[in-house]
């Protein structure tokens, strides 16, 4: 091949590449816009008067911003109570979930005992059963124990999922068994091995479990909808939904409340994002 043709070929290939990359960036920017526009619209509308929310063409930056919405919303609905309830539930559920499932996962991954397979089968068998298929008898059971309209019901509902056990077991199986053997020879009890070796090692898996449980509990809707009917017990999602159906024309206030409901999850997500992505990539499971 003579040199000029090679050069032409090379430059045309480079040009093709440049065209392809431009195309890719245009598509990516379009998709990013599609993902973000509703959020931008939400923030923009939360600073507007009701009558200005739907002005067209869209006024992205309100000409006279109205932060009053963010003050009024706290008195219109007991938002602070809703947030406190949700925060309480989320923290307790996340704590219990991490503690009990990492505990159980250690035994399933590293200990030999009778009935191990049968017990584990109990967890596997439930994968195919959606919660929605047994939520009715579960509610009847909880009501018989007078647990409807208590936070305890939501905690019990969320804290013992099979998901946590699977996630932690998978991680622990990747830890070399020799590590446990060595610790046993050094005289460490199984509890010591769990607390001093396995738990510290499994911080990435724990972070994944924390962020999944946090997001799921914070955003949970159907559970609190069925169990919590008293205002003082409601979570932010139910409270927000109640507000939307009562004051459907209070657009500015609805958007302000929505922004407030989104912020905690976005903070947790942005700070633990790495583990979230790793968690999905390695297990692909969903709560």
């Amino acid at each position, binding site marked *: 091949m003579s040199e000029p043709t090679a050069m032409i070929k090379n430059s045309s290939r480079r040009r093709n590449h440049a065209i392809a990359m431009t195309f890719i960036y245009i598509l990516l920017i379009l998709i990013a816009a599609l993902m973000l526009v509703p*959020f931008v619209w*939400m923030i923009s509308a939360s600073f507007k008067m009701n009558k200005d929310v739907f002005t067209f063409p869209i006024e992205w930056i309100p000409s006279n911003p109205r932060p009053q919405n963010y003050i009024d919303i706290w008195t219109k609905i007991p938002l602070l109570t809703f947030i406190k309830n949700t925060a309480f539930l989320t923290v307790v559920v996340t704590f219990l979930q991490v503690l*009990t499932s990492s505990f159980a996962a250690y035994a399933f991954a590293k200990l030999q005992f009778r009935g191990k397979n049968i017990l584990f089968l109990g967890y596997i068998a439930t994968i195919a059963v*959606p919660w929605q298929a047994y939520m009715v008898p579960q509610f*009847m*059971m909880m009501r018989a124990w007078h647990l409807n309209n208590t936070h305890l019901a939501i905690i019990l509902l969320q804290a013992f999922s*099979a998901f946590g056990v699977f996630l932690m077991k998978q991680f622990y199986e990747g830890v070399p068994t020799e590590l446990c053997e060595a610790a046993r020879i050094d005289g460490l009890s199984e509890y010591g091995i769990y607390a001093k070796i396995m738990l510290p090692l499994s911080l990435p898996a724990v972070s994944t479990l924390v962020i999944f449980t946090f997001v799921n509990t914070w955003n949970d809707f159907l559970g609190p909808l069925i169990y919590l009917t008293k205002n003082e017990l409601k979570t932010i999602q139910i409270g927000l939904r109640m507000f939307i159906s009562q004051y459907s024309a209070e657009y500015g206030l609805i958007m302000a409340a929505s922004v407030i409901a989104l912020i905690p999850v976005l903070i947790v997500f942005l700070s633990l994002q790495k583990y979230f992505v790793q968690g999905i990539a390695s297990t692909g499971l*969903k709560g």
Partner: protein
Amino acid sequence: MSRDNTQLAVKRKSKKALRSNLVAYSFIAPNFIGFCVITLVPMVFAIALAFCKWDGVHDIEFIGLQNFKDLLGDRVFKKAFVNTIVFSLGTVPLTLICSLGLAILLNQNVKLRNFFRTVSFFPYVASLVAVAAVWNMIFSPSMGPINMILSRLGVENLPRWAAGKDTAMITVILFSVWKNMGYYMVIYLAGLQGINPDLKEAASLDGANRWHTFWNVTLPQLRPTTFFVVIMLTISSFKVYDQMYMITQGGPGNATITLVYDIYNVAFVNTPKYGYASAISMVLFILVLIITLIQFKGASGDN
């Protein structure tokens, strides 16, 4: 050596085994007891309840297959069943194509990759109530910006979106794709990164262009990922409820009622019919079970 000693050793050994069993059980107990009481017991109860009549006040009455016979003549249930399938047929392929496309774009050597990935993930982690509220406003038939733009573009019969009988389902499907594609994109991204780069190199040395490489190398290599994504998407689409609840309230005229919506209505709205609700639950369970069995079969076939 005497037999006594061996017996003693056996005894000691079994004592040790018992101890280590007990230690293991103590690890499992906190989670397993909770899991049993809260999950396993109601599951079994759900099956029994499907053959009973119960309003929560009077005694439970065993009625055999009557609930299931009633289902056959129940127009709302039939509508809910068909809608659930329609919703699946709409969301599964659309979400699949969108998330795969996005993953392929992000798998190129692009700058700001993390930014784009994070942004596509926002809708997935965001509170459903909040984003549904915005969605409802943006797609508002009379005032929303979407219809304003359409009318500027000269569209005459503006779609009524969530309020229209024919468009309500499409609106929820679009919303669902928007909300969930980021999640499946991450799964695809992991799949794409697992593909051996040598394969692509070999293909391009053989003179294959990007398109050929995609069809003949990337896509076949992604088969297990795609299989997994289809299963996950199908199962979660069968369980759909809250998206309808917040965007269309199941309407207009039951146009977007789903199986879980029907279960909720029958059990918790109006006079409760717990047995009947459990019978609908069994239908949902069987649908999900079929998909799960397909998954098990597919997964063992791959190995």
